């Protein structure tokens, strides 16, 4: 029992389960799953589907945070990737009434991802080579990135008319949303890379003590660059999902404040912002917590003007639940005569 409680994922999972239970309590149809046209439908599937972009971005963010970095430009990179893909696909009606893409779909997707990865590389160069503080370095692209996206779209919302592109954000594969498959695939491959190569050990050692890692012969700069590049790439994938989902690219609003949700998801999952030890599974749970919260607020019919306040209160409650100090305080207040919990094990 003790071992389960001390598992770093224990409290995040409890938080998620409590939120899901609360949703089900307020809305009994919440847990209902239906099979329709070979697709699985239901609120839970909906949450998973909507959480996919956040999961993807947060996975990249986890690694960046693990090497003592931070990337607050991911929201802007989402907008850039969305703009690039929408521009390159566009779509026009041919004489036969069929919709055609301006460029081959694969080329559009690859270009968008390459641009996103380049954005990540740029961030990494500023941090590693120019020695900037990560938050400042990525602040540049956070501000400039949206400007670039607006420049690309000419300040308009670009609508995409080419149906095959919609699969990413709206399609289903084997009954589950394609976006969910993408997030799952990314998680699985990242997990594989981290467990089959020394990347995990290197990332943890760079985050734990960069100087000691260097003395031990770890090429910290190269690895940190790769991690930022991957974070940009992940933001690009999220951008594709988002623009495909809404069938357009909105330079102003795509990925708005996504960076903060991603940082929150990483933190909720139990990865320390100080770097070092990290958990991908925790991050996925953190992202699910955030999406569940958002969905719950909508399904409760909370008026839009108090929406954010309710969300803030719920996030606050979740954070308290996960704070070891707070739990100790509660335990001590409940049993005033007992000494500090956790002091004696």
């Amino acid at each position, binding site marked *: 029992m003790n071992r389960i409680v001390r598992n770093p994922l224990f409290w995040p999972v409890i938080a998620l389960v409590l939120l899901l239970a609360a949703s089900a309590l307020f809305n009994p149809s919440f847990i209902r799953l239906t099979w329709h046209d070979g697709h699985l439908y239901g609120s839970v599937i909906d949450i998973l589907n909507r959480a996919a972009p956040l999961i993807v971005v947060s996975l990249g963010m986890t690694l960046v945070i693990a090497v003592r970095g931070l990337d607050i430009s991911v929201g802007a990179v989402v907008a850039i990737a969305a703009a690039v893909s929408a521009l390159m696909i566009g779509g026009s009606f041919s004489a036969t009434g069929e919709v055609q893409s301006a460029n081959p779909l694969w080329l559009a997707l690859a270009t968008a991802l390459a641009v996103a990865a380049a954005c990540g590389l740029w961030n990494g160069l500023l941090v590693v080579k120019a020695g900037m503080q990560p938050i400042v370095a990525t602040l540049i692209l956070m501000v400039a990135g949206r400007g670039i996206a607006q420049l690309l779209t000419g300040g308009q919302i670009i609508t995409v008319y080419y149906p095959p592109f919609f699969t990413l954000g709206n399609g289903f594969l084997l009954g589950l949303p394609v976006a969910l498959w993408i997030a799952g695939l990314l998680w699985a491959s990242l997990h594989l890379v981290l467990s089959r190569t020394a990347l995990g*050990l290197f990332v943890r*050692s760079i985050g734990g003590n960069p100087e000691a890692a260097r*003395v*031990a*012969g*770890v090429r910290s700069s190269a690895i940190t660059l790769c991690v930022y590049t991957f974070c940009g790439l992940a933001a690009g994938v999220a951008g594709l999902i988002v623009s495909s989902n809404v069938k357009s690219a909105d330079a102003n609003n795509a990925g708005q404040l996504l960076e903060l949700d991603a940082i929150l998801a990483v933190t909720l999952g139990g990865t320390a912002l100080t770097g070092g030890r990290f958990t991908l599974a925790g991050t996925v749970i953190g992202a699910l917590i955030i999406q569940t919260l958002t969905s719950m607020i909508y399904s409760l019919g909370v008026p839009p003007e108090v929406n954010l306040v309710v969300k803030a209160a719920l996030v606050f409650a979740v954070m308290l639940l996960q704070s070891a100090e707070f739990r100790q305080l509660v335990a001590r207040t409940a049993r005033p005569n007992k000494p500090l919990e956790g002091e004696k094990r």
Partner: protein
Amino acid sequence: MNDPAIVLRARGISRAFPGVQALCGAELTLRAGEVHALMGQNGAGKSTLIKVLTGVHAPDAGSIELLGNAVSPESPIHAQQLGISAVHQESHLLPNLSVAENICAGRYPRHPWTRGGGIDWRETERRAAELLASLGIRLDVTQLAGGLPAALQQLATVARAVATDARVLILDEPTSSLDADEVQALFTLIRRLRDKGVAILFVTHFLDQVYDICDRMTILRNGRFVGEYTCAQLDTHGLVAAMVGRELAASPAAAPEHVAENATAPPVLAARNLSRRGQLKPLDIDLRPGEVLGLAGLLGSGRTELARLLFALDPRDTGEISVDGKPARLDHPADALRLGLGFCPEDRKHSGIIADLSVRENIALALQARMGLTKFLGLTEQRQIAEKLVAALGVKTSSIETPIGQLSGGNQQKAIIARWLATQPRVLILDEPTRGIDVAAKQELMNEILELARGGTAVLFISAEIDEVVRVSDRILVLRDRAKAGELPGGATEDQVYSLIAASHS
């Protein structure tokens, strides 16, 4: 038993941590106007006892009496309010504040005009200056603490600790980063405090310092109380025996016999004209397989700087480095690692251990870095390597999965050496490997070094303690003022080394 001079008495103190019984019935009695040494090997429980006294840890059992009243410090601040102050190994001044601000931190005098709203900086400086003057420390209190030499910072830290009318002052390895003159300055301060009636607890690994300044000592071994002695009762030999729990074999004679055979062997590592501005003047150095090259010199003579240049931790301005006679590209520690070099840094906490990671991960790190990203060692292999080295070096840890930060200093040091042994280095640079570890562990470590050299590894051994250098080295390179002062063959005496070091100072 009711000696009126007794200020603090701790009885039957026990404290356990997961997997370790750190203290088991420890006793300590401190008297006013005496300097009391707390002695013991690494892991004997010295740090834990200090942490219990200063309220960092609560004891599982036992009692603490201060001036006859039972007390139980709950936090370092509470302990300070009770009159128990502590100074730790590394000075804890805030570098960007002035000396006066540091000394009065937490109890700044308020400005009378603002009804306690603002701080009276002039009064702050006056009080700090007065305190330092009363302790005989000459220091400009308006200076930034970060700009002071380590020794003056240490003195200011001690002054800050006694500013709260401390009855008990605990000094935890205050001399480990000071050189001989600085130690004397600190001792003058300690004696002055002693004469004022402060009860002082002094923890150090330097035995001569114990006899220099202490009146009495308490010895701990494996968390248990061994005994309390006056310094006259117990000589060095008896002290070491009591700490270790057995008679130490006399130190092995210097000058291993295999000197002659490898004196002509081609060097495995050679540097020509190696220099870096402000750090090291150009010098040549050769390391032959199977030899221990000692590097001696005072603090700031360029010992560490030379080592860092050889391992490419700092970029060199001039100099060619060759390995096996072939010019080597050496721009990053990873290059050094690939060429078969290893480096145990002097500053264990800052550039050695990765505190949050397990002993296993810390040991596997360098080998994995050499093998690269894709050739992953895997958990089983990492475990095997770590288990083997932990056993071979006698690292005391409850498990190889314990975070290395939880180990005692000497065991951390051994684990870092294990990290490099795992790479089977051809050249191993050890920068102050014996700093902060106890006598018995030092002995083991020196034997380990000789063993390594016998196996063909070239060892560059750096130590501030000349007797150690003399004891293990086949050759001794003496540095002075960031340049080579001379070279001595194995079997040279300490005096010969000192005369080289001192040549230009006389």
